């Protein structure tokens, strides 16, 4: 047991520093992917609420496809497929290979795209929960569409969307473990490497699980605080 703790510690024999850095990498990939998902999700939700027939069909197709295909396959497609595309273009332009794309970028794009599909559902639900009267009232007092969005729609939708967005963030963190297949050194990849080189498989996978649990628990607490704060001024117990 003593030896186990030295392995996980920050001493010269320990993997503590490396695991910490890997944990930060997990966070970095997740934050970028979530942000991309938020942008895509907002656009898609907008298209589904206010788009014409074509944009609506496109947006719906996007959500159906991305929610029906395994995350791992999407990451593979972006990483290996991306490399294939880059190679084709690069060769056509006359550059010398070999070509490669970074696991970080491929993973971020793939997870962002997947998360965008789910986030759009959350945002659309939140928009639909806004009382119609408030939007009409805004129009009546002469707000422009942008002011209406900024002062009436966004604040109300954000309040209802927080719990759903919290769930989406949790799944992004868990999906980020799949980016390890591209060789990006985040938590999952780092614990595999450590487990292989020390032959302490269970110990390091347990440590990895601990890192993920710490991240998910901490973010859960933060989202709860955000939810509470966003409900200030509302009737208590009414929500």
């Amino acid at each position, binding site marked *: 047991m003593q030896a186990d703790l030295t392995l996980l510690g920050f001493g010269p024999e320990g993997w503590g520093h490396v695991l910490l850095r890997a944990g930060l990498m997990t966070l970095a990939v997740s934050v970028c992917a979530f942000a991309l998902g938020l942008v895509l999700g907002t656009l898609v939700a907008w298209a589904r609420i206010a788009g014409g027939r074509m944009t609506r069909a496109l947006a719906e197709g996007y959500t*159906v496809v991305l929610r029906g*295909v395994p995350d791992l396959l999407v990451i593979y497609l972006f990483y290996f497929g991306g490399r294939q595309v880059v190679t084709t273009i690069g060769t056509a332009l006359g550059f010398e290979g070999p070509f490669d794309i970074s696991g970080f970028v491929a993973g971020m794009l793939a997870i962002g795209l997947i998360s965008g599909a789910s986030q759009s559902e959350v945002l659309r639900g939140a928009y639909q929960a806004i009382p119609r009267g408030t939007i009409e009232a805004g129009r009546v007092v002469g707000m422009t569409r942008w002011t209406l969005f900024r002062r009436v729609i966004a604040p109300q939708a954000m309040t209802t969307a927080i719990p759903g967005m919290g769930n989406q963030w949790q799944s992004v963190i868990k999906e980020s473990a799949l980016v390890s297949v591209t060789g990006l050194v985040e938590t999952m990849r780092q614990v595999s490497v450590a487990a292989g080189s020390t032959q302490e498989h269970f110990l390091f996978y347990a440590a990895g699980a601990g890192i993920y649990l710490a991240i998910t628990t901490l973010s859960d607490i933060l989202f709860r605080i955000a939810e509470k704060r966003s409900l200030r001024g509302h009737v208590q117990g009414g929500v």
Partner: protein
Amino acid sequence: MDIPFLRDILGQLLVGLPLTLNLAVLSLLGGGGLALILNLLRLSRVGSVFASAYVFVFRGTPLLIQIFMIYYGLASFGFVRQSVLWPFLREPYWCGLLALVLNDAAYTSEILRGGLRAVPKGAVEAGRVSGMTRATVLRRVILPIAARQALPAYGNEVISMLKATALVSTITLMEVTGIARAEVSSTYRAVEIFLCAAAIYLALSLVITRAIGWLERWLSPYNFGKTQ
């Protein structure tokens, strides 16, 4: 567009479909059973703590790490290698299935819990008053109401389990994704092959969505504006 190549690839990928479906169906069955047990455990205080901790751990960590922990991690304990379970825990199939079952149980138990909480107290009391035994109330009143309530969320869980089976390809199982991965490393045509595999999963999940929607309509026609 290289149609003969695509047809060839599709044929090869479909060889993995039975394993994908096998894993998905068995993990849903096992996970559903375990989820029911977890919810029964919640009736006692100690059991409730255990169930909460179980759900917390399995929902808070990625499935991939759970699979690796069972496949590589358990083997590093001497007593596991000497136990009667070793012939099973040595096989990637059983390890993958075990991880999927344990993971599915955590999510399904939460869905079921939500459904059970939605059962009106009055319905249970009415059943008890009219002389039903506890088991009959469970079978004729509680579970039917809870199942109807939980069905939409459970439909999403079925689809996410179907997608989750792709992860066992990382421990050398040759289901659809595993075959796709192997084909890519021998032909280097990643885009075509992975898109083919994606199409298979997409078709399956559309079928599941339809089936769940039909089931919902059949179980609760009053929610869809139909009266008998």
